[in-house]
């Protein structure tokens, strides 16, 4: 999202300065940006111009007496162009309250540690522009996971489900290293699994799925997507694929999905989760159908 906003600026700045000597290019750029963002802009535009962002952050800590009752803390953070939700909470932590706790690491949507519930939607803090959100920005820990402290949720269950589908390449059929130095994958097959390999284990999908919320045994979108990534990989043998489908077609596997598309909608990596789950359902049916 941030790259999209930067684009027009870098492309057009040289033109602007050359062609319109009288009007300041900065102003023009601002106007252009304003126009393109008008529909995404928050209702309260003056807040952004007045260069502070109002964020409300969920606070809870069972070990501190006056934080045992969950509450929201308000922070007013100076707005900087290109500021993300993660930048805002980091500023609040560094400047106002060093006890504000949240997970973050790479800040570029790769590590998957900073998934928050921002304005009612699961989003990656580092990938969400503050300027796109309505203020005040409500930042909460992921729903349907137990809160450990502030924005930190217990991820154990999510990781258990991920590991349950054996999310690693199995090489029982791999020929000897002397025969073959690399295991090639066809371009078509790579394209097929491409999107599913992008998962960063942020648990946004699991948190958005209300089937997963009601059924603790349900594998969840992320785990099924992980299984899809390997089940659809041609380099794995048929036996292993069958083994994977056996895990998935159990009661709490793919059949729990009721196609609400919540996961697909929140996935910060735009993985078509529902599509993958549906495809595995069809695979599971095909595997068991017999016409004789």
């Amino acid at each position, binding site marked *: 999202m941030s790259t999209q906003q930067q684009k027009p600026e870098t492309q057009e700045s040289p033109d602007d300065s050359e062609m319109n000597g009288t009007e300041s290019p900065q102003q023009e750029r601002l106007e252009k940006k304003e126009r393109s963002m008008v529909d995404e802009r928050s209702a309260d535009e003056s807040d952004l111009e007045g260069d502070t962002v109002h964020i409300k952050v969920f606070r809870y800590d069972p070990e501190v007496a006056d934080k045992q009752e969950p509450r929201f803390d308000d922070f007013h953070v100076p707005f900087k162009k290109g500021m993300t939700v993660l930048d805002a909470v980091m500023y609040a932590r560094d400047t106002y309250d060093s006890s504000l706790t949240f997970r973050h690491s790479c800040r570029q949507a790769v590590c998957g540690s900073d998934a928050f519930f921002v304005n009612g939607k699961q989003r990656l803090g580092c990938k969400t522009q503050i300027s796109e959100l309505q203020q005040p920005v409500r930042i909460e820990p992921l729903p349907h996971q137990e809160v450990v402290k502030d924005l930190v949720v217990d991820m154990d269950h999510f990781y258990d489900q991920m590991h349950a589908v054996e999310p690693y390449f199995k090489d029982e059929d791999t020929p000897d290293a002397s025969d073959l130095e690399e295991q090639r994958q066809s371009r078509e097959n790579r394209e097929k699994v491409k999107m599913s390999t992008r998962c960063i284990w942020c648990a946004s999908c699991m948190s958005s799925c209300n089937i997963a919320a009601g059924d603790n045994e349900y594998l969840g979108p992320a785990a099924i997507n992980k299984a899809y990534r390997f089940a659809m990989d041609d380099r794995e043998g048929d036996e292993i694929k069958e083994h994977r489908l056996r895990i998935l077609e159990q009661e709490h596997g793919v059949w729990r999905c009721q196609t609400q598309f919540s996961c697909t909608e929140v996935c910060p990596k735009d993985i078509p989760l*529902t599509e993958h789950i549906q495809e595995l359902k069809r695979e599971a049916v095909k595997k068991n159908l017999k016409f004789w």
Partner: protein
Amino acid sequence: MSQSYNRGLIEDFGRWKEFSAGMWAWIFHKFTGWMLIGYLFTHIAVLSSAVTGPEAYTNTIQGLESLFIIRVLEVGLLAVAVFHILNGLRLLMVDLGVGLDAQDKSFYASLVLTAIITIASVPTFMDGVTI
């Protein structure tokens, strides 16, 4: 880690304003499904009046149809059934993996179609009944 705070049911229906199209489609599909099951039982109850004889059945039907509220409920039943059918077709497409990118649009389309068909049916259902 010893203690953790669970936010309970507020995480679900307390957030209805934030639901997306797919979620609403799911809720409406469940709701209309249960309504249709409920209707099946009343339908059987009405039909079973025929066991006593043709007159009893005719009287039941005529008695019910003369009531304004029954006519209104019939319109509601049609709306529920039409939505369930249309959304069922949508889900069939989803299951076949067709047009998954347009799932929200097809949900809105089924809502609009339901509304049109329901409104168009009102004159027929309301024919010859007094409040």
